[in-house]
């Protein structure tokens, strides 16, 4: 296995503002946000849903363009998506028509790497994420945790300078999630790529990160910066450490500061709840 020390990976965000939506429904998601992330640093963006942390990630990935300000990687402005900046979604985006090994090797195929070498390197990465033996399966045949492992392997095969993760373990059960967190830290120790990890889970942020950026909602901005300096390698036992619990309490207080503001609408993929619920209640009340 080739050991890779990703070269570079310094992210700088300068006075970034992003507006989303069309016409009168256009609104400001992020306002005048500035931050610098060092090469190899593990940064978590923590905040309530709808605060704009995923929007910031979208801008880093190159899928959203800034209204004002500048986003750059190692001095180069980010203008569009690139294999150098790997993005992992909450719900996997594996190609259902490709087997696991073809999904992982996809980035190399786009670079024109011959098939034999692609399969070899995909196999090595699958071993690294603990999925050796599943090469010929289709994504549908895997569990949610396994799908996310494949998704991470598919991004890492390009040796990205930055790994961007949008609540990648948010849809997994608690036990799988904690295993995946440990796996991610182990991978990061090997690869030493810069990681920007979005989450609304305080435990997750404090457990993983070198630095936690707490984001406040509408317009999104950095409210606080925390450095959970716990020793590495970290294990799940850390979650009950007194120092950890103390830091968590502080995070909770920070996130609740905005508690008096009305809760932000969250766009559900299923739309508003079906009408008729009230009617049924009324009938029973009679």
């Amino acid at each position: 296995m080739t050991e890779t020390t990703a070269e570079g990976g310094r992210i700088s965000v300068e006075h970034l503002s992003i507006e989303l939506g069309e016409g009168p429904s256009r609104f400001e998601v992020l306002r005048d946000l500035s931050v610098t992330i060092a090469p190899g640093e593990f940064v978590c963006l923590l905040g309530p849903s709808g605060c704009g942390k995923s929007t910031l990630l979208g801008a880093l990935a190159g899928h959203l363009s800034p209204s004002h300000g500048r986003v750059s990687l190692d001095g180069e402005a980010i203008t569009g998506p690139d294999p150098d900046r790997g993005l992992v979604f909450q719900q996997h985006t594996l190609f259902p028509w490709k087997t696991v090994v073809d999904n992982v090797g996809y980035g190399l195929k786009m670079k024109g790497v011959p098939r034999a070498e692609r399969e070899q390197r995909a196999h090595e990465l699958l071993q690294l994420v603990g999925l050796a033996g599943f090469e010929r399966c289709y994504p549908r045949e895997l569990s949610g945790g396994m799908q996310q492992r494949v998704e991470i392997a598919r991004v890492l095969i390009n040796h990205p300078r930055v790994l961007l993760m949008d609540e990648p373990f948010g849809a997994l059960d608690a036990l799988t999630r904690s295993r995946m967190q440990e796996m991610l830290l182990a991978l990061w120790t090997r690869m030493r790529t810069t990681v920007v990890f979005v989450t609304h889970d305080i435990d997750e942020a404090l457990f993983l990160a070198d630095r936690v950026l707490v984001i406040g909602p509408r317009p999104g901005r950095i409210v606080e910066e925390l450095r959970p300096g716990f020793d590495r390698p970290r294990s799940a036992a850390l979650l009950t450490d007194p120092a950890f619990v103390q830091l968590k309490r502080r995070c909770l207080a920070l996130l609740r500061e905005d508690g008096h503001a009305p809760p932000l609408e969250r766009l559900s993929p299923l739309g508003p709840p079906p009408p008729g619920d009230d009617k049924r209640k009324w009938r029973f009340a009679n």
Partner: protein
Amino acid sequence: MSAVLPAIARPRREPRPPRRLPLARLSLQLLSLGACLLLWQLACAWRLHLGFITFANTPAPAEVLEAAIKLAQSPKLWPHLSSSLLRVGTGFGLAAILGVTLGLLIGRIPLANKLLLPPLEVLRPIPAVAWIPLSILMFPSSEGSMIYITFVGALFPILLNTIHGVEAVDMRLIASARGLGTKGWRLFTEVIAPGAAPSIVTGLSIGMGTCWFCLVTAEMIAGQYGIGYYTWESYTVQAYPNIVVGMLVIGALGMGSSALINWAGARLMPWHRTQGGRR
């Protein structure tokens, strides 16, 4: 360095239990078919006349069977079959190529959508059969006009299903593919076409059905050989049992060609078949 995590156990696929013939269901189905044939035979034997419908002139199942055997031995069977198959093959092939290509472009490229869709939307509600008189004027050979009718019949189901399939491809898959370095036409071949494939196969299957429908109608009007022509000719020469034979052959050909498409689709998309999970 060893693997980061202990590997998850390899998937083990249990052998399927041998399938047992559903004897009870099968015998019920045969019984129901047999009952229909019996009723038909009785209605013809009694020359049933209900006022609005009459079985006085219709051929009975036994006569149909006799006519079918005669056709199977006749040297005319192959010319009839081959000319129909050739027309459907050509019309359907052209419709498939044009429908899928246009569908991919219209579904994905806004400019193609704006330029190509309006004329197609105007032509779409016109049934293929309504094209018959004009197509006779447009094509000097009757062969050309018949192929054109089958082509028009198959084009729109294929086109519309392809457009729908392309539009339904998950935006996140496209974003992910671009993030992994997909550029230009490879986005079509690697993501959009396979993503729309299940919908395209549905369109091809429906298109094949309408193809036969249109062909038979066209052959009844202009033709010398072909299974639709055979059916209509049997009526004009009063060989009534042959009508039913022709109908059954058309049904079998239509069903067979649709089954062929579905089979080919399942072979080309093993990932789609496993959608419900392997059992």
